[in-house]
């Protein structure tokens, strides 16, 4: 059985203008030790999908339907103490923007010790030892345990965040834009670190980013999201070499390729649709270069086009048989 099974997940937000369908029916599975990348533009619902798994939605957000099956329990129904026991111990998250996610007036060591003591019911000495191990693991000198966040550089703070997420030996780590605010060189360091940790600890990971390249380097499987739906899902290499959905193709063409010819990358004109009362047809219709009249009314389902490779487009034929 998969570690995490998501079926038809719908997460909506109540707003003044109406109900915003941020995530509207997505499915994916995640096995132990597997890394899945959620890609898409800002506002496509990738962060909302991840927050739904941890049930960290803001007050006006709610799970409107679908199943989140984590190790045999339906997360959509888990509440209270049971939920608290799962959070951080079984599923943890590396938040976006490491610069702001740490408490500036607390020493970094204390911030990591806290969840360990709370969840594992151990004394401070044991927890401190564990923090030192964690620091070693993510490449920070353990002597820096008593320093404050402002004494760390951006890349180092991100390492602290990673150490914190691993504090209680979780099975699943969600990384929300783990490298977005970082320089390319530090980004490469963090990606290398995430990759090695994932392998060494046999972690399941969900990495969220608007940057396909970051995902391609860290994940086994990619799911491309657009306007609350998964439009293509395939092994990372397949997405690059054989993209089927026009949106995926656009995203890949938008990358400046330093190894190729010097030319301006293409862009995807237009903006994503409003997710309050979205249209009936394909949500990518407005920006699609392959659109036909049928797309206005017929919403394409996500179908398997070859083993392990799924796409949702009216013009991509499903696998035979």
């Amino acid at each position, binding site marked *: 059985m998969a570690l995490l099974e998501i079926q038809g997940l719908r997460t909506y937000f109540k707003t003044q203008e109406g109900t915003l369908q941020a995530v509207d029916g997505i499915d994916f599975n995640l096995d132990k030790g597997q890394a899945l990348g959620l890609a898409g533009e800002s506002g496509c619902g990738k962060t909302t999908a991840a927050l739904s798994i941890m049930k960290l939605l803001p007050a006006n957000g709610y799970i409107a339907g679908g199943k989140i099956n984590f190790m045999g329990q339906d997360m959509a129904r888990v509440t209270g103490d049971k939920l608290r026991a799962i959070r951080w111990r079984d599923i943890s998250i590396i938040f976006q923007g490491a610069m702001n996610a740490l408490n500036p007036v607390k020493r970094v060591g204390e911030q990591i010790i806290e969840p360990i003591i709370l969840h594992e019911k151990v004394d401070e000495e044991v927890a401190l030892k564990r923090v030192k191990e964690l620091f070693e693991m993510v490449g920070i000198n353990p002597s820096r345990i008593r320093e404050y966040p402002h004494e760390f550089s951006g890349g180092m703070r991100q390492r602290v965040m990673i150490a914190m997420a691993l504090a209680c030996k979780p099975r699943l780590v969600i990384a929300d834009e783990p490298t977005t605010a970082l320089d390319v060189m530090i980004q490469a360091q963090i990606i290398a670190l995430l990759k090695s940790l994932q392998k060494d600890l046999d972690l399941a990971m969900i990495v969220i980013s608007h940057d396909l390249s970051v995902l391609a380097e860290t994940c086994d499987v990619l799911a491309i999201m657009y306007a609350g739906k998964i439009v293509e899902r395939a092994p990372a290499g397949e997405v690059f070499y054989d993209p089927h959905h026009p949106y995926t193709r656009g995203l890949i063409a*938008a990358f400046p390729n330093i190894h190729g010819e*010097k030319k301006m990358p293409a862009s995807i004109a237009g903006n994503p649709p409003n997710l309050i009362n979205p249209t009936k047809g394909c949500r990518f219709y407005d920006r699609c270069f392959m659109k036909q009249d049928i797309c206005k009314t017929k919403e394409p389902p996500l179908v398997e086009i070859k083993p392990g490779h799924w796409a949702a487009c009216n013009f991509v034929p499903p696998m035979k048989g």
Partner: protein
Amino acid sequence: MVKDILVVKDLQVWFPVRQGFIESLVSKEQRYVKAVDGVSFNIKEKEIFCLVGESGCGKTTTGKGILRLVEPTGGSVKYYGKGKEILLKDMISDALAKGKITKAQAEKMTAEGGIDVRALHKSKMKKLRQKMQIIFQDPYESLNPKQSVYDIVAEPLVVNGIGATEAEREKRVVKALEDAGLRPPKDFMWRYPHEVSGGQRQRVGIAGSLVLEPEFLVADEPVSMLDVSIRSEILKLMLDLRDNKGLAFLFITHDLGVAYVFSDRIGIMYLGKIVELGPTEEVVKHPAHPYTKALISVVPTPDPEMRRNQIILKGERPDPSNMPPGCRFHPRCPFVMDICRKEAPATVFVSEGHWVSCHLEKGQAK
């Protein structure tokens, strides 16, 4: 021959380090953070020159130093754009009248024609800044949320006292919005920043710079906060401005991938110095400095085949208030030699217009 619009020579921006009480007893020497430490380059008319480097390498400070948004502590910045002419005439006749220069000197100054940006008085600098503008990095932070798009774009006009009537100002705002690709301008003018998308916000920021009809723009990471899918639209807009309006750009970025597809020439900066400079394709395809090579190797790509031979540098840049001796890059350099720890490398040409500062390269000295 294409003329230069800007010549920067040995630009230096040092920030004094405030000493603690104990430290002030022990050491007499004032320490500095050498954010920019002897940077020289030129930008030609209609050229896009790119400064690339990690955060803290001084690329933004260089841009700000040129516009004197921070005061440089040394070196010279000369501006040769058309906008200088009125200013120059003004200044020369001023100086003549006050008897500060002789007629012969005045004639020579007119012939040379560059304006010494660092020597300008504040009031004159304000005038020159109409021609030298800046686009900021973060369109989410740099726009006042309480101002409408119209007010944001019109503000530079008000500040500089341009446009006698509201109607005149409106005309210029409409034109600037159009030039920045916000069409039709009437649709955007009365919106507030939260009512437009990220890409459009950056266009509003660009319109705010264009409204003064500049000749030279410093663009400080204008696309790093934007989604990949809309980045190239903003880059294309800037290319358009160059092609159709003859704007020259100093483009500042940490992303060599963007610099590669977009710029004419690149300067690679490390710890306050340019370590390699040359035509973009030449630098990217035949990098000479180990730092450039490392930067190129880590540019992220979605292509799994291209992900071999990454050179990931260990650690982070040293503290710029405590520079390592010799070559500044030596603590992180994979090819470090004995000489690198002692002597700063000379600058040598490796091909036409392409120079590098590294002990590994032998060539004609610059």
